[in-house]
Protein backbone atom coordinates (compact mmCIF):
# COMPACT_ATOMS: atom_id res chain seq x y z
CA UNK A 1 0.00 0.00 0.00
CA UNK A 2 1.28 3.48 -0.84
CA UNK A 3 1.87 5.87 2.04
CA UNK A 4 -0.41 8.42 0.39
CA UNK A 5 -3.12 6.95 -1.82
CA UNK A 6 -4.29 10.15 -3.48
CA UNK A 7 -3.78 13.89 -3.78
CA UNK A 8 -6.63 14.75 -1.45
CA UNK A 9 -4.94 12.86 1.41
CA UNK A 10 -1.68 14.68 0.69
CA UNK A 11 -3.30 18.12 0.48
CA UNK A 12 -5.10 17.52 3.80
CA UNK A 13 -1.77 16.56 5.38
CA UNK A 14 -0.12 19.66 3.89
CA UNK A 15 -2.89 21.86 5.28
CA UNK A 16 -2.68 20.23 8.70
CA UNK A 17 1.06 20.82 8.64
CA UNK A 18 1.82 17.13 9.21
CA UNK A 19 3.92 17.05 6.04
CA UNK A 20 5.50 19.43 3.54
CA UNK A 21 6.42 19.22 -0.14
CA UNK A 22 10.03 18.83 0.92
CA UNK A 23 9.20 15.88 3.18
CA UNK A 24 7.14 14.31 0.40
CA UNK A 25 10.00 14.59 -2.08
CA UNK A 26 12.45 13.19 0.48
CA UNK A 27 10.08 10.29 1.13
CA UNK A 28 9.74 9.46 -2.58
CA UNK A 29 13.48 9.84 -3.22
CA UNK A 30 14.17 7.40 -0.39
CA UNK A 31 11.67 4.98 -1.97
CA UNK A 32 13.43 5.33 -5.33
CA UNK A 33 16.74 4.56 -3.65
CA UNK A 34 15.24 1.49 -2.00
CA UNK A 35 13.65 0.20 -5.22
CA UNK A 36 16.68 0.61 -7.49
CA UNK A 37 16.65 -3.07 -8.46
CA UNK A 38 13.33 -2.55 -10.27
CA UNK A 39 15.06 -0.21 -12.77
CA UNK A 40 12.17 2.25 -12.80
CA UNK A 41 13.93 5.52 -13.55
CA UNK A 42 16.41 6.36 -16.28
CA UNK A 43 17.19 9.54 -14.36
CA UNK A 44 15.90 11.22 -11.22
CA UNK A 45 15.80 14.98 -10.79
CA UNK A 46 16.54 14.80 -7.06
CA UNK A 47 18.13 18.16 -6.25
CA UNK A 48 15.85 20.06 -8.54
CA UNK A 49 12.76 18.38 -7.05
CA UNK A 50 13.96 19.27 -3.53
CA UNK A 51 14.57 22.90 -4.50
CA UNK A 52 11.18 23.17 -6.13
CA UNK A 53 9.51 21.54 -3.11
CA UNK A 54 11.09 24.08 -0.76
CA UNK A 55 9.94 26.93 -3.01
CA UNK A 56 6.39 25.56 -3.08
CA UNK A 57 6.38 25.17 0.72
CA UNK A 58 7.48 28.80 0.98
CA UNK A 59 4.77 29.91 -1.47
CA UNK A 60 2.15 28.09 0.63
CA UNK A 61 3.40 29.58 3.89
CA UNK A 62 3.21 33.08 2.46
CA UNK A 63 -0.23 32.70 0.88
CA UNK A 64 -2.02 29.34 1.24
CA UNK A 65 -4.55 30.22 -1.43
CA UNK A 66 -1.87 31.00 -4.02
CA UNK A 67 -0.82 27.40 -4.67
CA UNK A 68 -2.04 25.52 -7.74
CA UNK A 69 -4.43 22.55 -7.88
CA UNK A 70 -1.55 20.03 -8.13
CA UNK A 71 0.19 21.36 -5.01
CA UNK A 72 1.69 18.29 -3.31
CA UNK A 73 1.54 16.07 -6.38
CA UNK A 74 4.86 14.38 -7.15
CA UNK A 75 4.87 12.83 -10.64
CA UNK A 76 7.19 10.85 -12.86
CA UNK A 77 7.31 11.41 -16.61
CA UNK A 78 7.85 8.76 -19.27
CA UNK A 79 11.07 9.22 -21.20
CA UNK A 80 9.21 10.33 -24.33
CA UNK A 81 8.08 13.72 -23.00
CA UNK A 82 10.20 16.82 -23.55
CA UNK A 83 11.17 18.71 -20.39
CA UNK A 84 13.28 21.73 -21.20
CA UNK A 85 17.01 21.40 -20.40
CA UNK A 86 16.53 17.79 -19.28
CA UNK A 87 17.71 14.71 -21.08
CA UNK A 88 15.23 12.70 -23.12
CA UNK A 89 16.09 9.38 -24.72
CA UNK A 90 12.93 7.38 -25.60
CA UNK A 91 14.92 4.59 -23.90
CA UNK A 92 17.00 4.38 -27.09
CA UNK A 93 20.69 4.51 -27.81
CA UNK A 94 19.65 6.81 -30.66
CA UNK A 95 18.87 9.64 -28.21
CA UNK A 96 21.00 8.76 -25.20
CA UNK A 97 22.76 12.13 -25.30
CA UNK A 98 19.80 14.27 -26.30
CA UNK A 99 18.68 17.28 -24.25
CA UNK A 100 15.24 18.81 -24.79
CA UNK A 101 15.18 22.44 -25.93
CA UNK A 102 11.59 23.03 -24.87
CA UNK A 103 8.92 21.50 -22.65
CA UNK A 104 5.87 19.59 -23.78
CA UNK A 105 2.62 21.50 -23.30
CA UNK A 106 1.40 18.80 -20.87
CA UNK A 107 4.57 19.27 -18.80
CA UNK A 108 4.24 23.07 -18.82
CA UNK A 109 0.65 22.76 -17.60
CA UNK A 110 1.32 20.42 -14.68
CA UNK A 111 4.24 22.59 -13.60
CA UNK A 112 2.08 25.71 -13.79
CA UNK A 113 -0.38 23.86 -11.50
CA UNK A 114 2.47 23.30 -8.99
CA UNK A 115 3.23 19.62 -9.56
CA UNK A 116 6.76 18.39 -8.84
CA UNK A 117 8.53 16.20 -11.43
CA UNK A 118 10.78 13.67 -9.74
CA UNK A 119 12.36 11.92 -12.73
CA UNK A 120 12.01 10.31 -16.13
CA UNK A 121 10.94 6.70 -16.30
CA UNK A 122 12.09 3.71 -18.31
CA UNK A 123 9.95 2.41 -21.18
CA UNK A 124 10.13 0.29 -24.30
CA UNK A 125 12.39 1.85 -26.93
CA UNK A 126 10.43 4.59 -28.73
CA UNK A 127 7.34 3.38 -26.82
CA UNK A 128 7.13 0.26 -28.99
CA UNK A 129 6.46 -2.82 -26.91
CA UNK A 130 4.22 -4.51 -24.38
CA UNK A 131 6.69 -5.61 -21.72
CA UNK A 132 9.30 -2.89 -21.15
CA UNK A 133 11.95 -5.35 -22.28
CA UNK A 134 13.24 -3.42 -25.29
CA UNK A 135 14.73 -0.46 -23.38
CA UNK A 136 18.35 0.45 -24.06
CA UNK A 137 18.60 0.76 -20.27
CA UNK A 138 17.41 -2.77 -19.53
CA UNK A 139 14.01 -4.08 -18.41
CA UNK A 140 11.90 -2.58 -15.64
CA UNK A 141 10.56 -5.16 -13.17
CA UNK A 142 7.09 -5.59 -11.72
CA UNK A 143 7.19 -4.65 -8.02
CA UNK A 144 4.70 -7.38 -7.05
CA UNK A 145 6.91 -10.08 -8.59
CA UNK A 146 10.28 -8.81 -9.87
CA UNK A 147 10.70 -11.87 -12.09
CA UNK A 148 7.76 -10.59 -14.12
CA UNK A 149 7.36 -7.76 -16.62
CA UNK A 150 5.46 -4.59 -15.65
CA UNK A 151 3.85 -4.37 -19.10
CA UNK A 152 4.65 -1.69 -21.59
CA UNK A 153 5.45 0.46 -23.13
CA UNK A 154 4.87 2.74 -20.11
CA UNK A 155 6.23 0.04 -17.77
CA UNK A 156 8.49 2.36 -15.78
CA UNK A 157 5.57 4.79 -15.38
CA UNK A 158 3.38 2.05 -13.91
CA UNK A 159 6.02 0.68 -11.52
CA UNK A 160 6.90 4.23 -10.40
CA UNK A 161 3.38 4.47 -8.94
CA UNK A 162 3.11 0.80 -7.94
CA UNK A 163 6.37 0.94 -5.94
CA UNK A 164 5.28 4.21 -4.27
CA UNK A 165 8.08 6.33 -5.71
CA UNK A 166 5.66 9.09 -6.78
CA UNK A 167 1.92 9.74 -6.66
CA UNK A 168 1.11 9.61 -10.38
CA UNK A 169 2.83 9.12 -13.73
CA UNK A 170 2.52 10.54 -17.22
CA UNK A 171 2.88 7.99 -20.00
CA UNK A 172 1.83 7.63 -23.61
CA UNK A 173 -0.72 5.22 -25.09
CA UNK A 174 -0.56 4.27 -28.77
CA UNK A 175 -2.17 0.84 -28.50
CA UNK A 176 -2.55 0.26 -24.77
CA UNK A 177 0.80 1.44 -23.46
CA UNK A 178 -0.77 3.08 -20.41
CA UNK A 179 -3.73 0.78 -19.74
CA UNK A 180 -1.89 -2.54 -20.10
CA UNK A 181 0.93 -1.77 -17.62
CA UNK A 182 -1.63 -0.23 -15.25
CA UNK A 183 -3.50 -3.52 -15.41
CA UNK A 184 -0.34 -5.59 -14.88
CA UNK A 185 0.58 -3.45 -11.87
CA UNK A 186 -2.84 -3.08 -10.23
CA UNK A 187 -3.41 0.62 -11.02
CA UNK A 188 -5.73 3.02 -12.82
CA UNK A 189 -4.62 3.90 -16.36
CA UNK A 190 -6.34 6.25 -18.76
CA UNK A 191 -6.03 7.04 -22.45
CA UNK A 192 -8.07 10.14 -23.26
CA UNK A 193 -9.76 10.80 -26.63
CA UNK A 194 -7.59 11.48 -29.64
CA UNK A 195 -6.96 15.22 -29.55
CA UNK A 196 -7.85 15.72 -25.86
CA UNK A 197 -4.31 16.51 -24.68
CA UNK A 198 -1.80 18.43 -26.76
CA UNK A 199 1.03 16.25 -28.05
CA UNK A 200 3.42 19.13 -28.51
CA UNK A 201 6.63 17.81 -27.01
CA UNK A 202 5.62 14.14 -27.07
CA UNK A 203 8.00 12.08 -29.23
CA UNK A 204 5.94 10.77 -32.14
CA UNK A 205 5.48 7.04 -32.68
CA UNK A 206 2.21 6.64 -34.64
CA UNK A 207 0.60 10.04 -35.00
CA UNK A 208 -2.98 8.98 -35.69
CA UNK A 209 -2.91 6.84 -32.51
CA UNK A 210 -0.65 8.51 -29.91
CA UNK A 211 -2.12 10.14 -26.80
CA UNK A 212 -0.56 11.18 -23.52
CA UNK A 213 -2.05 9.05 -20.74
CA UNK A 214 -2.13 8.95 -16.95
CA UNK A 215 -1.33 6.22 -14.43
CA UNK A 216 -2.43 6.72 -10.82
CA UNK A 217 -3.72 4.96 -7.71
CA UNK A 218 -7.14 6.55 -8.02
CA UNK A 219 -9.66 7.77 -10.57
CA UNK A 220 -9.77 11.11 -8.75
CA UNK A 221 -6.06 11.80 -9.33
CA UNK A 222 -6.46 10.75 -12.97
CA UNK A 223 -9.31 13.25 -13.31
CA UNK A 224 -7.44 16.21 -11.87
CA UNK A 225 -4.38 15.54 -14.05
CA UNK A 226 -6.50 15.25 -17.18
CA UNK A 227 -8.33 18.46 -16.29
CA UNK A 228 -5.01 20.32 -16.00
CA UNK A 229 -3.42 18.92 -19.19
CA UNK A 230 -6.37 18.81 -21.61
CA UNK A 231 -7.53 21.45 -24.03
CA UNK A 232 -6.59 23.64 -26.96
CA UNK A 233 -2.95 24.42 -27.67
CA UNK A 234 -1.72 26.54 -30.50
CA UNK A 235 1.36 24.35 -30.89
CA UNK A 236 -0.57 21.19 -31.78
CA UNK A 237 -2.94 21.44 -34.75
CA UNK A 238 -4.45 18.02 -33.92
CA UNK A 239 -5.60 18.95 -30.43
CA UNK A 240 -9.29 19.67 -29.99
CA UNK A 241 -10.73 23.03 -28.97
CA UNK A 242 -13.57 21.15 -27.23
CA UNK A 243 -14.18 22.71 -23.79
CA UNK A 244 -12.56 20.91 -20.85
CA UNK A 245 -15.03 20.10 -18.06
CA UNK A 246 -13.88 20.19 -14.42
CA UNK A 247 -13.48 16.41 -14.36
CA UNK A 248 -12.33 16.40 -10.74
CA UNK A 249 -15.60 18.04 -9.65
CA UNK A 250 -17.78 15.42 -11.35
CA UNK A 251 -16.76 12.12 -9.86
CA UNK A 252 -20.19 10.81 -9.00
CA UNK A 253 -22.15 9.24 -11.88
CA UNK A 254 -25.80 10.23 -11.81
CA UNK A 255 -28.31 7.45 -12.42
CA UNK A 256 -27.91 4.14 -14.17
CA UNK A 257 -25.77 3.32 -17.18
CA UNK A 258 -26.31 1.26 -20.34
CA UNK A 259 -23.24 -0.88 -20.94
CA UNK A 260 -22.34 -3.17 -23.83
CA UNK A 261 -19.88 -6.04 -23.85
CA UNK A 262 -18.73 -8.12 -26.79
CA UNK A 263 -19.44 -11.83 -26.45
CA UNK A 264 -16.60 -12.58 -28.91
CA UNK A 265 -14.14 -10.71 -26.70
CA UNK A 266 -15.28 -12.32 -23.45
CA UNK A 267 -15.32 -15.82 -24.94
CA UNK A 268 -11.99 -15.40 -26.74
CA UNK A 269 -9.90 -18.57 -26.56
CA UNK A 270 -6.82 -16.65 -25.50
CA UNK A 271 -8.50 -15.08 -22.46
CA UNK A 272 -7.26 -16.40 -19.10
CA UNK A 273 -10.16 -18.28 -17.39
CA UNK A 274 -9.62 -16.43 -14.10
CA UNK A 275 -9.85 -13.04 -15.83
CA UNK A 276 -12.89 -14.21 -17.77
CA UNK A 277 -14.68 -15.40 -14.64
CA UNK A 278 -14.01 -12.25 -12.66
CA UNK A 279 -15.00 -10.07 -15.62
CA UNK A 280 -18.35 -11.86 -15.87
CA UNK A 281 -18.76 -11.60 -12.09
CA UNK A 282 -18.16 -7.87 -12.38
CA UNK A 283 -20.79 -7.60 -15.10
CA UNK A 284 -23.22 -9.35 -12.76
CA UNK A 285 -22.30 -6.92 -9.99
CA UNK A 286 -23.03 -4.01 -12.34
CA UNK A 287 -26.42 -5.51 -13.10
CA UNK A 288 -26.99 -6.00 -9.40
CA UNK A 289 -26.31 -2.29 -8.90
CA UNK A 290 -29.08 -1.50 -11.37
CA UNK A 291 -27.07 -0.86 -14.52
CA UNK A 292 -28.16 -2.38 -17.78
CA UNK A 293 -25.48 -4.63 -19.32
CA UNK A 294 -26.02 -6.44 -22.62
CA UNK A 295 -24.01 -8.59 -25.00
CA UNK A 296 -23.53 -7.00 -28.41
CA UNK A 297 -22.10 -8.53 -31.58
CA UNK A 298 -18.73 -7.32 -32.72
CA UNK A 299 -17.61 -9.07 -35.85
CA UNK A 300 -14.28 -7.28 -36.21
CA UNK A 301 -12.39 -8.59 -33.18
CA UNK A 302 -9.93 -10.65 -35.26
CA UNK A 303 -9.10 -7.62 -37.42
CA UNK A 304 -8.11 -5.24 -34.63
CA UNK A 305 -4.51 -6.32 -34.13
CA UNK A 306 -3.77 -6.74 -37.89
CA UNK A 307 -5.07 -3.28 -38.83
CA UNK A 308 -3.43 -1.71 -35.77
CA UNK A 309 0.01 -3.11 -36.60
CA UNK A 310 -0.10 -2.24 -40.31
CA UNK A 311 -1.02 1.37 -39.57
CA UNK A 312 1.28 1.96 -36.60
CA UNK A 313 4.30 0.40 -38.28
CA UNK A 314 3.69 2.57 -41.34
CA UNK A 315 3.40 5.71 -39.24
CA UNK A 316 6.42 4.71 -37.16
CA UNK A 317 8.60 4.22 -40.23
CA UNK A 318 7.61 7.68 -41.38
CA UNK A 319 8.02 9.39 -37.98
CA UNK A 320 11.36 7.74 -37.27
CA UNK A 321 12.84 8.85 -40.60
CA UNK A 322 13.76 12.09 -38.80
CA UNK A 323 16.53 10.29 -36.90
CA UNK A 324 19.32 10.83 -39.39
CA UNK A 325 22.19 11.57 -36.99
CA UNK A 326 22.75 15.09 -38.31
CA UNK A 327 21.01 17.62 -36.07
CA UNK A 328 20.61 15.32 -33.08
CA UNK A 329 20.75 11.67 -32.19
CA UNK A 330 23.38 8.98 -32.49
CA UNK A 331 25.96 9.65 -35.19
CA UNK A 332 28.24 6.93 -36.49
CA UNK A 333 31.97 7.51 -36.14
CA UNK A 334 32.98 5.67 -39.27
CA UNK A 335 31.04 6.97 -42.30
CA UNK A 336 32.83 8.41 -45.31
CA UNK A 337 29.78 9.23 -47.43
CA UNK A 338 26.41 10.77 -46.59
CA UNK A 339 24.55 7.58 -47.55
CA UNK A 340 26.82 5.56 -45.29
CA UNK A 341 26.36 8.16 -42.53
CA UNK A 342 22.56 7.76 -42.60
CA UNK A 343 22.63 3.99 -42.77
CA UNK A 344 25.21 3.42 -40.07
CA UNK A 345 23.87 6.07 -37.69
CA UNK A 346 20.36 4.60 -37.88
CA UNK A 347 21.48 0.99 -37.74
CA UNK A 348 23.71 1.58 -34.71
CA UNK A 349 21.19 3.85 -32.96
CA UNK A 350 17.98 1.83 -33.21
CA UNK A 351 17.35 -1.43 -31.37
CA UNK A 352 16.23 -4.64 -33.04
CA UNK A 353 12.48 -4.30 -32.41
CA UNK A 354 12.38 -0.72 -33.64
CA UNK A 355 14.23 -1.69 -36.83
CA UNK A 356 11.75 -4.51 -37.41
CA UNK A 357 8.83 -2.07 -37.25
CA UNK A 358 10.58 0.41 -39.51
CA UNK A 359 11.19 -2.34 -42.08
CA UNK A 360 7.59 -3.56 -41.96
CA UNK A 361 6.28 0.00 -42.09
CA UNK A 362 8.47 0.71 -45.08
CA UNK A 363 7.11 -2.45 -46.71
CA UNK A 364 3.41 -1.62 -46.28
CA UNK A 365 4.00 1.90 -47.61
CA UNK A 366 6.10 0.87 -50.61
CA UNK A 367 4.97 0.90 -54.22
CA UNK A 368 3.10 -2.27 -55.11
CA UNK A 369 2.06 -3.08 -51.53
CA UNK A 370 0.49 0.21 -50.40
CA UNK A 371 -3.06 -0.61 -51.49
CA UNK A 372 -2.99 -4.24 -50.38
CA UNK A 373 -1.75 -3.49 -46.87
CA UNK A 374 -1.82 0.16 -45.83
CA UNK A 375 -4.99 1.28 -47.58
CA UNK A 376 -6.67 -2.00 -46.71
CA UNK A 377 -5.94 -1.38 -43.01
CA UNK A 378 -7.26 2.19 -43.29
CA UNK A 379 -10.49 0.77 -44.70
CA UNK A 380 -10.69 -1.82 -41.93
CA UNK A 381 -10.21 1.02 -39.46
CA UNK A 382 -13.24 2.80 -40.95
CA UNK A 383 -15.40 -0.33 -40.58
CA UNK A 384 -14.24 -0.81 -36.98
CA UNK A 385 -14.84 2.82 -36.07
CA UNK A 386 -18.29 2.93 -37.68
CA UNK A 387 -19.36 -0.20 -35.80
CA UNK A 388 -18.11 1.10 -32.45
CA UNK A 389 -19.80 4.47 -32.94
CA UNK A 390 -22.99 2.60 -33.74
CA UNK A 391 -22.71 0.66 -30.45
CA UNK A 392 -21.99 3.85 -28.51
CA UNK A 393 -25.06 5.50 -30.01
CA UNK A 394 -27.10 2.97 -28.02
CA UNK A 395 -24.87 2.44 -24.98
CA UNK A 396 -23.00 4.72 -22.58
CA UNK A 397 -19.99 2.42 -22.22
CA UNK A 398 -18.30 -0.64 -23.64
CA UNK A 399 -16.72 -2.91 -21.04
CA UNK A 400 -13.84 -5.26 -21.83
CA UNK A 401 -10.85 -6.98 -20.24
CA UNK A 402 -7.61 -4.99 -20.56
CA UNK A 403 -5.32 -7.93 -21.25
CA UNK A 404 -5.87 -11.61 -22.02
CA UNK A 405 -3.38 -12.64 -19.29
CA UNK A 406 -1.57 -11.32 -16.23
CA UNK A 407 2.05 -10.12 -16.44
CA UNK A 408 4.35 -12.78 -17.87
CA UNK A 409 7.89 -13.70 -16.80
CA UNK A 410 10.75 -11.52 -18.05
CA UNK A 411 12.27 -13.20 -21.12
CA UNK A 412 9.37 -15.63 -21.48
CA UNK A 413 8.01 -14.17 -24.72
CA UNK A 414 11.15 -13.33 -26.64
CA UNK A 415 10.52 -15.64 -29.57
CA UNK A 416 7.63 -14.95 -31.91
CA UNK A 417 6.65 -11.25 -32.09
CA UNK A 418 3.15 -12.20 -33.28
CA UNK A 419 2.39 -13.76 -29.88
CA UNK A 420 3.14 -10.49 -28.09
CA UNK A 421 1.29 -8.42 -30.70
CA UNK A 422 -1.85 -10.52 -30.21
CA UNK A 423 -1.81 -9.76 -26.48
CA UNK A 424 -2.81 -6.19 -27.43
CA UNK A 425 -6.21 -7.39 -28.66
CA UNK A 426 -8.31 -5.54 -26.06
CA UNK A 427 -6.39 -2.29 -25.86
CA UNK A 428 -5.86 -1.30 -29.51
CA UNK A 429 -9.57 -0.70 -30.12
CA UNK A 430 -9.59 2.64 -28.26
CA UNK A 431 -6.64 3.89 -30.32
CA UNK A 432 -8.00 2.62 -33.65
CA UNK A 433 -11.20 4.56 -32.97
CA UNK A 434 -9.73 7.59 -31.19
CA UNK A 435 -12.00 7.00 -28.18
CA UNK A 436 -11.25 7.45 -24.48
CA UNK A 437 -10.72 4.38 -22.30
CA UNK A 438 -9.94 3.83 -18.64
CA UNK A 439 -8.54 0.67 -17.05
CA UNK A 440 -8.92 0.00 -13.33
CA UNK A 441 -8.04 -2.95 -11.08
CA UNK A 442 -10.46 -5.85 -11.05
CA UNK A 443 -8.78 -8.67 -9.17
CA UNK A 444 -5.79 -10.94 -8.74
CA UNK A 445 -5.13 -14.44 -10.00
CA UNK A 446 -4.15 -17.33 -7.77
CA UNK A 447 -0.50 -16.23 -7.91
CA UNK A 448 -1.40 -12.79 -6.64
CA UNK A 449 -0.84 -11.04 -9.98
CA UNK A 450 -3.32 -8.23 -10.60
CA UNK A 451 -5.44 -7.60 -13.68
CA UNK A 452 -7.88 -4.89 -14.63
CA UNK A 453 -10.98 -4.22 -16.65
CA UNK A 454 -11.62 -1.26 -18.95
CA UNK A 455 -14.42 1.00 -20.03
CA UNK A 456 -14.61 2.93 -23.30
CA UNK A 457 -17.01 5.71 -24.16
CA UNK A 458 -17.85 8.14 -26.96
CA UNK A 459 -15.36 10.77 -28.04
CA UNK A 460 -14.79 13.58 -25.52
CA UNK A 461 -17.07 11.99 -22.91
CA UNK A 462 -14.26 11.65 -20.37
CA UNK A 463 -16.47 13.29 -17.76
CA UNK A 464 -18.91 10.36 -17.90
CA UNK A 465 -16.13 7.82 -18.15
CA UNK A 466 -14.29 9.14 -15.09
CA UNK A 467 -17.40 9.65 -12.97
CA UNK A 468 -18.70 6.18 -13.77
CA UNK A 469 -15.34 4.51 -13.18
CA UNK A 470 -15.01 6.34 -9.89
CA UNK A 471 -18.53 5.49 -8.76
CA UNK A 472 -18.27 1.78 -9.52
CA UNK A 473 -14.75 1.37 -8.12
CA UNK A 474 -15.91 2.97 -4.87
CA UNK A 475 -19.18 1.05 -4.61
CA UNK A 476 -18.67 -2.35 -6.17
CA UNK A 477 -15.46 -3.64 -4.64
Amino acid at each position, binding site marked *: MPKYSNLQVIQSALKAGSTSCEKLVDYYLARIEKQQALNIYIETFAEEARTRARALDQKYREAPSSVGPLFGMVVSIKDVLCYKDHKLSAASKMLHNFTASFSATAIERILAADAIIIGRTNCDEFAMGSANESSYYGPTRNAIDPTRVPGGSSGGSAVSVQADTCLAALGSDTGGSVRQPASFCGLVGMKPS*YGRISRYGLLAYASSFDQIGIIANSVADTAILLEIMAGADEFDSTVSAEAVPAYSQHLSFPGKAKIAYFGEAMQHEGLDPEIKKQSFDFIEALRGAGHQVAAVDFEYLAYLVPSYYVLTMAEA*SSNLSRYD*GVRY*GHRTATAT*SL*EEHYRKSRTEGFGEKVK*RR*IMLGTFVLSVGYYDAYFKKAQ*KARRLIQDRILQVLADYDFIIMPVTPSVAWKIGEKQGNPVEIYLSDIYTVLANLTGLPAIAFPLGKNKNGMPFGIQLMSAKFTEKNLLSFANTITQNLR
Partner: protein
Amino acid sequence: MKVDKPLISKLENLAKLALSDEEKTQLLTDMNDILSMVEKLDHLDTEAVAPLIHMSDQPQVLRKDEIKHELSKEEALKNATAKVDPFFTVPKVIDLD
Protein backbone atom coordinates in the same frame (compact mmCIF):
# COMPACT_ATOMS: atom_id res chain seq x y z
CA MET B 1 2.86 -12.69 -49.87
CA LYS B 2 6.26 -14.14 -49.05
CA VAL B 3 9.15 -11.87 -48.13
CA ASP B 4 12.52 -12.90 -49.58
CA LYS B 5 16.10 -11.66 -49.23
CA PRO B 6 16.03 -9.34 -52.31
CA LEU B 7 12.91 -7.60 -50.90
CA ILE B 8 14.63 -7.21 -47.51
CA SER B 9 17.58 -5.55 -49.25
CA LYS B 10 15.27 -3.20 -51.15
CA LEU B 11 13.44 -2.20 -47.95
CA GLU B 12 16.71 -1.78 -46.10
CA ASN B 13 17.76 0.67 -48.75
CA LEU B 14 14.48 2.59 -48.57
CA ALA B 15 14.61 2.68 -44.75
CA LYS B 16 18.28 3.71 -44.75
CA LEU B 17 19.41 0.81 -42.61
CA ALA B 18 22.37 -1.55 -43.00
CA LEU B 19 21.47 -4.85 -41.41
CA SER B 20 23.81 -7.75 -40.73
CA ASP B 21 23.20 -11.13 -42.39
CA GLU B 22 22.07 -12.48 -39.05
CA GLU B 23 19.56 -9.65 -38.61
CA LYS B 24 18.27 -10.18 -42.15
CA THR B 25 17.71 -13.88 -41.57
CA GLN B 26 15.80 -13.19 -38.36
CA LEU B 27 13.82 -10.45 -40.06
CA LEU B 28 12.83 -12.79 -42.87
CA THR B 29 11.16 -15.14 -40.40
CA ASP B 30 9.59 -12.36 -38.33
CA MET B 31 8.27 -10.41 -41.30
CA ASN B 32 6.68 -13.50 -42.82
CA ASP B 33 5.05 -14.39 -39.49
CA ILE B 34 3.74 -10.87 -39.03
CA LEU B 35 2.48 -10.57 -42.60
CA SER B 36 0.58 -13.83 -42.42
CA MET B 37 -1.12 -12.51 -39.25
CA VAL B 38 -1.87 -9.22 -41.01
CA GLU B 39 -3.24 -10.91 -44.14
CA LYS B 40 -6.31 -11.86 -42.13
CA LEU B 41 -7.52 -8.47 -43.34
CA ASP B 42 -8.05 -10.01 -46.79
CA HIS B 43 -11.14 -11.76 -45.42
CA LEU B 44 -12.77 -8.39 -44.89
CA ASP B 45 -14.91 -7.00 -47.70
CA THR B 46 -13.82 -3.38 -48.03
CA GLU B 47 -14.92 -2.82 -51.62
CA ALA B 48 -17.21 0.14 -50.91
CA VAL B 49 -15.37 1.47 -47.85
CA ALA B 50 -13.53 4.80 -47.83
CA PRO B 51 -10.17 4.64 -46.01
CA LEU B 52 -10.12 6.34 -42.61
CA ILE B 53 -7.26 8.81 -42.89
CA HIS B 54 -7.89 11.62 -40.39
CA MET B 55 -8.86 10.91 -36.80
CA SER B 56 -10.19 14.38 -36.10
CA ASP B 57 -13.57 15.41 -37.48
CA GLN B 58 -13.03 18.99 -36.42
CA PRO B 59 -11.81 21.76 -38.70
CA GLN B 60 -8.15 22.61 -38.40
CA VAL B 61 -7.52 25.74 -36.41
CA LEU B 62 -4.46 27.63 -37.52
CA ARG B 63 -2.69 30.13 -35.34
CA LYS B 64 -1.20 33.39 -36.57
CA ASP B 65 2.09 32.92 -38.33
CA GLU B 66 4.20 34.56 -35.66
CA ILE B 67 7.60 33.43 -34.52
CA LYS B 68 7.30 31.72 -31.16
CA HIS B 69 9.46 29.30 -29.19
CA GLU B 70 12.46 30.40 -31.18
CA LEU B 71 15.70 28.51 -30.53
CA SER B 72 18.97 30.36 -30.28
CA LYS B 73 21.79 29.21 -32.56
CA GLU B 74 23.55 27.61 -29.58
CA GLU B 75 20.37 25.79 -28.52
CA ALA B 76 19.75 24.49 -32.01
CA LEU B 77 23.29 23.21 -32.37
CA LYS B 78 23.74 21.75 -28.92
CA ASN B 79 22.48 18.25 -29.76
CA ALA B 80 24.56 17.83 -32.92
CA THR B 81 27.65 15.65 -32.65
CA ALA B 82 29.41 17.28 -35.60
CA LYS B 83 29.16 20.99 -36.27
CA VAL B 84 31.22 23.93 -37.44
CA ASP B 85 29.52 26.91 -35.89
CA PRO B 86 26.98 27.98 -37.17
CA PHE B 87 26.45 24.86 -39.29
CA PHE B 88 25.57 21.21 -38.86
CA THR B 89 28.09 19.17 -40.80
CA VAL B 90 27.76 15.97 -42.82
CA PRO B 91 30.28 13.90 -44.78
CA LYS B 92 31.33 15.65 -47.98
CA VAL B 93 28.68 15.37 -50.72
CA ILE B 94 30.17 17.53 -53.49
CA ASP B 95 33.31 16.27 -55.14
CA LEU B 96 35.00 19.15 -56.96
CA ASP B 97 37.55 16.91 -58.63
